[in-house]
């Protein structure tokens, strides 16, 4: 646990040591802000639904971009050899890196709380419960995509390739329930359960079900497990 924290600290610090983190946060705030204010004034909606539907789209590209270098860069620079020969477990390294990327995503999300504050001042009949559970959904979604991003980063030493693989996998998750009409009925329920949208839409409506929580938790766990396995596989290289 302590080792995980040390890795986490180092990675987070290195995000903020480079312009990368600031660029990410500013662009994230601008993009979400643009869509939010647009719908807010155009349709005079007093809720956060616009934000909750745009953030998952923005995530598709932003999260793989944040996580792409986490392991790939260690491989290309060669520091993977230093870090893998320290007396710590590979899973501590993977978890620490995941948490660092995930934290940056959550910080980005916190920036959008400004919109919510605006809303509470100017809006009428704001459903605070729905906003809260909607945010909760986005936090969990960010976790899933971050775990996918870290996994992609472990597959290659090229950050750009890691980005492309990451975008591809999160797109599959994102689009799964749009493919339902092509799926045989017998499998439909299963495919629907795998898609993030299905779980997310429940939450943005204000419903938090343990089934949704179990889903997000196990997908994150699954990808972190795979990542650890990939990192360990160097030993047999």
């Amino acid at each position, binding site marked *: 646990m302590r080792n995980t924290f040390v890795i986490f600290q180092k990675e987070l610090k290195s995000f903020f040591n480079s312009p990368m983190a600031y660029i990410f946060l500013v662009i994230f705030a601008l993009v979400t802000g643009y869509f939010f204010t647009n719908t807010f004034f155009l349709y005079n909606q007093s809720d956060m639904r616009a934000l909750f539907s745009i953030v998952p789209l923005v995530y598709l590209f932003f999260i793989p971009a944040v996580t792409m270098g986490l392991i790939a860069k260690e491989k290309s*620079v060669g520091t993977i050899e230093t870090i893998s020969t*320290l007396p*710590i477990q590979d899973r501590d390294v993977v978890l620490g890196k995941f948490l660092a990327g995930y934290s940056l995503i959550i910080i980005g999300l916190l920036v959008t709380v400004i919109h919510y504050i605006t809303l509470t001042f100017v809006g009428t009949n704001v459903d605070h419960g729905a906003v809260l559970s909607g945010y909760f959904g986005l936090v969990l979604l960010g976790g899933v995509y971050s775990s996918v991003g870290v996994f992609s980063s472990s597959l290659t030493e090229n950050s750009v390739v890691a980005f492309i693989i990451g975008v591809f996998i999160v797109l599959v998750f994102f689009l799964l329930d749009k493919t339902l009409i092509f799926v045989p009925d017998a499998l439909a329920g299963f495919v629907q359960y795998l898609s993030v949208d299905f779980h997310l839409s429940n939450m943005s409506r204000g419903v938090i079900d343990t089934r949704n929580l179990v889903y997000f938790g196990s997908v994150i766990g699954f990808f972190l497990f795979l990542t650890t396995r990939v990192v360990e596989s160097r*030993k*047999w290289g």
Partner: protein
Amino acid sequence: MIKVDNLSKSYGSIEAVKSLSFEINDGEIVGFLGANGAGKSTTLKVMTGFLRPTSGNVYVDDLNILDHEREIQKRIGYLPELNPLYVDMKVFDLLKFHATIRGMTDKQFKTALERVVHDCGLSGVIHRTVGDCSKGFKQRIGLAVAMIHDPEILILDEPVTGLDPNQIVEIRQLIKQLGKEKLVIMSSHILQEIQATVDKIIIINNGELVAEGSSEELIASAQGLAQLTLEIQDADENAIQEMKAFIPSLSIHTLESSEKSSFVTLEYANTSDPRKEIFDYAVKNQWSILEMSQSKTNLEDVFRSLTQKGDQGNA
């Protein structure tokens, strides 16, 4: 004590290390030599737990790398080949990071920092970004990282390669100093880089052990040839060729004549010394020997002959 026991490591179908065995005792500085692609880095990567052996094992005292990887890693400081570093960190933060991972308290870190800053000469760069430091300083930073927890064992993969001659001398002195208390294994593909620093040399070729011992032992065990270079006046080439008939242990390696004198290189077994016979023969024929110099096999020749055969240049 480190014991590499019948170690083999393959990358797919490439057998990089084949049934390699050797032992290193505490307080020894060992040079691990081999041509490019001989399997040095692969061996060191297995010793540090970065790679798993395909077969065989590595022992550190009573621990082995298959069952006690983390315990062994605690005792080792490792400088990987090409000295990879986190270039965006400050030197201080980098050392602090490694110290924390190694479980050191702030107080222990403070003492350790003073030690490595002094030993590696880092006082000028401690608050600089690693990536902004010169190559020589980066190498010292790499060494400082490997030493921060004061390990019993230092494993250094080509620690002086790519440095300028002055830096090589400095790093060598540092390693020599460290070797007084620690077990040090340093690899190189250039003999001169390490010959002066190490107590013992292990030479591998194509993944196999070809020689092991001190410089003197290696030279003694090599059955090399000695060469004698002569500059002679007033001798014709035929007479020189005939010398072989009188002194059977000789062979003529090269023979060149100019108007004034002849230059001859003779070869004979390292163990014999025919200089007196040659001199007497020259006197008998009324030649004037202007110069005569003998060169015996040196460690360089031993290294070259051991690592040349079967070298497929598969680096």
